[in-house]
């Protein structure tokens, strides 16, 4: 069902000299086989990126409360949302690691794919028919959308916020603009791509239907084979994997992530694991977390105020859980200890049916100073208001005096420097 190439009207328009002429493009590598192989890799990779992206979006439970929702205008684009599970506890960690590492590893494949079809950008006449014009507009959404998603994602994981708006808004809506054009492109090109990959032997003659406008009519002598060129792209992907994936694997592997933002540990000892935002960077003052700090626990019609000593006097529980960030990095499991969220709910009479909780931090600024945890997150016995980690009192950068840790939740939902917990529906 693709738009056919050539056509009876073509000879009527003489292409001006330059890139609009097929003979301007001289690489002997270009042809349907190479484009099809790269396209099939991207088909699998981009599908996986889209699915992990949708899961990542769902993990924030944006439907639960306005404070969780970075994209309140989403409308029907959130149609698939579901309560994010707490088991398996590594679900978010693996999902984000795959999303970010795969996105980075696909960069050379995407570039090679664009290189392989460059003659089509300049094809002459620029628009042959209504169908062809419509398809080219769709390709603008496809290529622009792909570039936009890769650029915003890669910049965001490096904390380089130069894009024009909130990352969540741009990356989420951009993905939906892109994916429609992606489906159209796959539907119209997949049959031809499969035919091209199966077809062995010499590339088709330039100008034929089968050549799809990709084969040069005046090829230069080859300096690398087609398989060699694919190998070079693969080597590029492998190199990017090698300097990136360690920040998601953690442990010994972290040191191999030579160019990734979280490729080293901040120090030895019980607090030597990754920090998303230090205390200083979100305006925590010594007085906020000093002896005057209090934890306020609220329920319907009841309120309890605890000092740190009173919190420590409650029954302490342990949970080994990772911190996993939307940016793809994560820590291996850390041993947290503190008070169960269900025990804190019981203080205000919500012991029998603990429900959602609004968690508020003393931090100043930043979009994640407070969060609403869902019923299943509050009820999980591994969900703690932690006061210790790996046998030591929490450090300031890890949320002293108390932080939330919830299995499977995105890192920013494990609120640090907690000062107030409100159980039940907001009053």
């Amino acid at each position, binding site marked *: *069902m*693709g*738009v056919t190439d050539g*056509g009876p009207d073509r000879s009527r328009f003489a292409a001006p000299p330059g890139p609009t002429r097929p003979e301007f493009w001289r690489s002997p590598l270009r042809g349907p086989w190479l484009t099809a192989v790269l396209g099939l890799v991207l088909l699998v990779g981009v599908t996986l990126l889209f699915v992990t992206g949708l899961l990542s979006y769902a993990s924030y439970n944006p439907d639960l409360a306005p404070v969780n929702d970075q994209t309140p*205008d*989403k*409308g*029907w*684009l959130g149609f698939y949302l579901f309560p994010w599970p707490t088991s398996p506890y590594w679900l978010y960690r693996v999902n984000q690691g795959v999303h970010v590492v795969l996105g980075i590893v696909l*960069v050379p494949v995407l*570039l090679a794919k*664009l*290189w392989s079809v460059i003659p089509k*950008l300049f094809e002459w006449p620029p628009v042959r*028919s*209504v*169908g*062809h014009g*419509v398809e080219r507009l*769709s390709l*603008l*959404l496809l*290529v*622009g*959308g792909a*570039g*936009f998603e*890769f*650029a915003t994602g890669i910049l965001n994981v*490096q*904390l380089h916020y130069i894009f*024009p*708006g909130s990352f969540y808004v741009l990356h989420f*809506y*951009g993905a*939906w*603009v892109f994916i*429609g*054009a992606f489906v*159209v492109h796959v*539907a*119209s090109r997949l049959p031809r791509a499969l035919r091209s990959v199966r077809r062995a032997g010499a590339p088709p003659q330039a100008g034929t239907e089968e050549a799809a406008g990709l084969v040069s009519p005046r090829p230069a002598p080859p*300096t*690398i084979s087609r398989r060699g060129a694919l190998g*070079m792209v693969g*080597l590029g992907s492998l*190199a*990017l994997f090698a*300097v990136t994936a360690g920040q998601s694997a953690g442990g010994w592997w972290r040191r191999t992530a*030579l*160019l*990734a*933002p979280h490729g*080293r540990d901040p120090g030895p000892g019980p607090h030597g694991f*990754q*920090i*998303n*935002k*230090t205390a200083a*960077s979100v305006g925590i003052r010594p007085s906020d977390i000093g002896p005057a700090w209090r934890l306020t626990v609220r329920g319907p019609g009841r309120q309890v105020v605890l000092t740190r000593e009173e919190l420590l006097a409650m029954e302490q529980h342990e949970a080994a859980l990772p911190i996993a960030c939307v940016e793809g990095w994560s820590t291996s499991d850390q041993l947290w200890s503190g008070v169960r969220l269900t025990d804190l709910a019981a203080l205000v009479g919500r012991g029998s049916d603990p429900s959602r909780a609004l968690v508020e931090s003393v931090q100043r600024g930043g979009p994640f100073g407070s969060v609403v945890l869902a019923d299943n997150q509050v009820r999980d016995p591994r969900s703690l208001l932690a006061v210790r980690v790996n046998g030591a009192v929490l450090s300031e950068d890890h949320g002293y005096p108390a932080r939330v840790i919830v299995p499977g939740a995105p890192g920013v939902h494990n609120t640090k420097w907690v000062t107030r917990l409100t159980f039940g529906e907001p009053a």
Partner: protein
Amino acid sequence: MNGALAFRRRYGASPLHLLLVLASFALAAYAGVRLLKGDTLGVALWFVGAALLHDLVLLPLYAVTDRAAQYLFRKGAGAGDGSRPTRPSVNYVRVPAFVSALLLLVWWPLILRRVGHYTAATGLPADVFLGHWLLITAALFAASAATLVVRGLHASGPRRRAERRRRREARKAVK
């Protein structure tokens, strides 16, 4: 001529193509309105810029660089005294340069220290990335050089062995 063929002649593709494209445009418009809601001009520029960055900026840059490298390795360049049976391929430069440039393209904000608040946020030093990238680049070119030497020795092996044998026989003949 049946209806579908007539449609194809006027439109240029099948009716299914038109329907799918229209569905995708409607979805893109639904999401696009939301995407453009804030900084409309900025987002539009980023989107169109992302579509053109590779084709109109990166491709001309790397194509010209690649041509220059090919010129250096072309037949006839260098001594060309006939004693070397094979000339080294341009790929000994092309492959490590490609991998190094790719790493820079993805990680330039950290490598070139464009992220001022990196250390404040993460508690990690920001000055290691340029050094890492330079050392990786050095290792890539060194590995390529090692491959060139090993392949060179391998290829010229029979010729050098023949040469040694000839010299040995010549010495014997003198005795």
